[in-house]
Structure formats: structure tokens, C-alpha cells
């Protein structure tokens, strides 16, 4: 009985810990966007051609945050 309760508690704690990953991904995405903006303001004429690169960078940074979200979801609903 106690084991079941501990498992249920651990599930929630684990999901909460996984949410830290989302925050870390937010830092990564902010880094990408901020550096892009810093570069774009230095050389605005080259910025337009680099938006595709910007989005690829954002997507890669974000993917790992989404993985942690997925871990949280799995803990909450699948385990």
C-alpha cells in the first residue's frame, strides 16, 4: 500500500522535475532569438536571408524541451 502511494507521489514529482526541462528549453530558444536579433540589428540587410536558419535553430532548441514535456505527459498519463 505504501509502495503504491510512493509510486503515485513519485509520478507527480517526476513530472514536476521534467517541467524544468521546458524552462531550460526556454533559455535555449531565447538565446537563439536574442543572438539572431543582435546580429540582425548589426546587419539588417542580411537578416532576411537568415530567417530560415533562425527557425531551424529555434526548432532544434525547442525539440529537447518538447521531449521533457513528453516525459511529463508520459509520467502523468501513461505510467
Amino acid at each position, binding site marked *: 500500500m505504501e509502495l503504491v502511494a510512493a509510486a503515485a507521489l513519485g509520478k507527480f514529482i517526476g513530472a514536476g522535475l521534467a517541467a524544468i526541462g521546458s524552462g531550460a528549453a526556454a533559455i535555449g530558444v531565447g538565446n537563439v532569438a536574442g543572438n539572431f536579433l543582435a546580429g540582425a540589428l548589426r546587419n539588417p540587410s542580411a537578416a532576411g536571408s537568415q530567417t*530560415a536558419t533562425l*527557425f*531551424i535553430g*529555434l*526548432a532544434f532548441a*525547442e*525539440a529537447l524541451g*518538447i*521531449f521533457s*514535456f*513528453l516525459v511529463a*505527459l508520459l509520467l502523468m*498519463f501513461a505510467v
Partner: protein
Amino acid sequence: MAAEEHGEGLAFHPMDQFIVRPLFGEGDVGVFTITNATLWMALSVLAIALLFIVGTRGRAIIPTRVQSIAELAYGFIHKMVEDVAGKEALTFFPYIFTVFLFIVFSNFLGLLPMAFTPTSHIAVTAVLAIGVFLTVTIVGFAKNGAGFLSLFWVSSAPLPLRPILALIEIISYFVRPVSHSIRLAGNMMAGHAVIKVFAAFAPLVLISTIGIAVTPLSIVAITAMYGLEILVAFIQAYVFTILTCVYLKDALHPGH
């Protein structure tokens, strides 16, 4: 109220919207059951067909509004494929354009109230991503033969490092369909769940006095999230498409 049922403070569960249900009657969902997912996928396909049939019927020199939208979408993806993956990749433009339109329309139709978002399900996005993965792998080997394997053998790196890099490259190659599909599904699911969490707080004014403060806040939050979701719905379709182009570029030119 359903609140007692879930044992939480919410009027309904934010994940309820993602349940796949049979469209007609009750019962189990089988392979050929027509579900709400089927309905909304069919609706997005119909909407795409309608846009392009109506849009391309006139073929006017001065485009009508519908024709402008169709031309805009076509030109946007055509340019993206050409810029990112190169001229040779234009052979795959119809495929990429189809994938893009399906994702964009599913995402946007899913934003309608009471709608179901097919792209919030990993099953749907995984099929799209595995399709891209297989296409890229087959095209890579068909175009370059064994030379496609040079994608994993980074010739610009120092020789002792290359086996380690090869291992990392191989792992990252096979993780691609996973991250490709989960990114789209996760974004759609997370955004819709956040809207539903706020939506569940909105009727609090009916059952408790604290709702006088919470209800206006959550309605403002729903509106703000909705605006963000419109942005995300487009950006995720764009990201999915542009990554398809990037992977295709790897397949066509594995050397660099």
C-alpha cells in the same frame, strides 16, 4: 459537476479534448471506425481541395482573393524548397507542399472551438515524419548509392574523432523522425491543453466568490493564448516543412 469525478479543481479535464471517439454511436475504436480524428482530417483535406480548385479555376491575370491566397501559399513553399534544399529538390515540391498544407489546415481547423486537432496526436505526426524519413533515406541511397554514408563520416574532422562523430551522427539521424513528429504533436497538444486549463478556470465565478477575480483573468489569458496559438499553428507547420527541406538537402548533397 465533473470536478468531483476527477477530484481536481477544474470543471473538466484539459486532456479530454484529445480523446479519439467514434463519430457515430458508442463503442470501441477499430481500424476502420470513423472517428472525430477522421472527420477533422477529412475536413482539412476538403478545405485544401476547395481552396485550390476555386483558386485555380479562374487563372486570372489579376488574381481574385482566393487565387491570391493559393498563389501565395504555392510561391512561399516553392521558394523555401528552392532556397533551402536547392533546385534539384523541386522534384519533391508537390510532396512537401502537400505535407505543409495538411499540417497548416489541421492546425488551424483545430483552433476552432469544439474542434479536434489531428496533428496533436503523435500517431498522425509520426506517419508524416516516417514518410519524410523513408523518402529521405531512399532518395539518399538512390541518388548517391553508398556515397550517402559519407553523411555519417565527417571528412572535415580529425581522423581519430571520426568514428565517435559517426556514432553521434547515426544516432541523430535515427532520432530525426522522433523529434520531427513529437515537436509538432507536442506543440499542438501543449498549446491546446493550456487554453483548456484556463477555460476550465473561467466558469469558477458560478460556484465560488473567488471566481470574480479569477474569471476575467482567465478569459484574458485564453484570448492571449489563442493569439499565440495562431502564431504557433503556422510556425510549427513552417518548421516541419523547413526541416523536411533540410533533410532532403542532406539526402541530395550528403558531402556538405
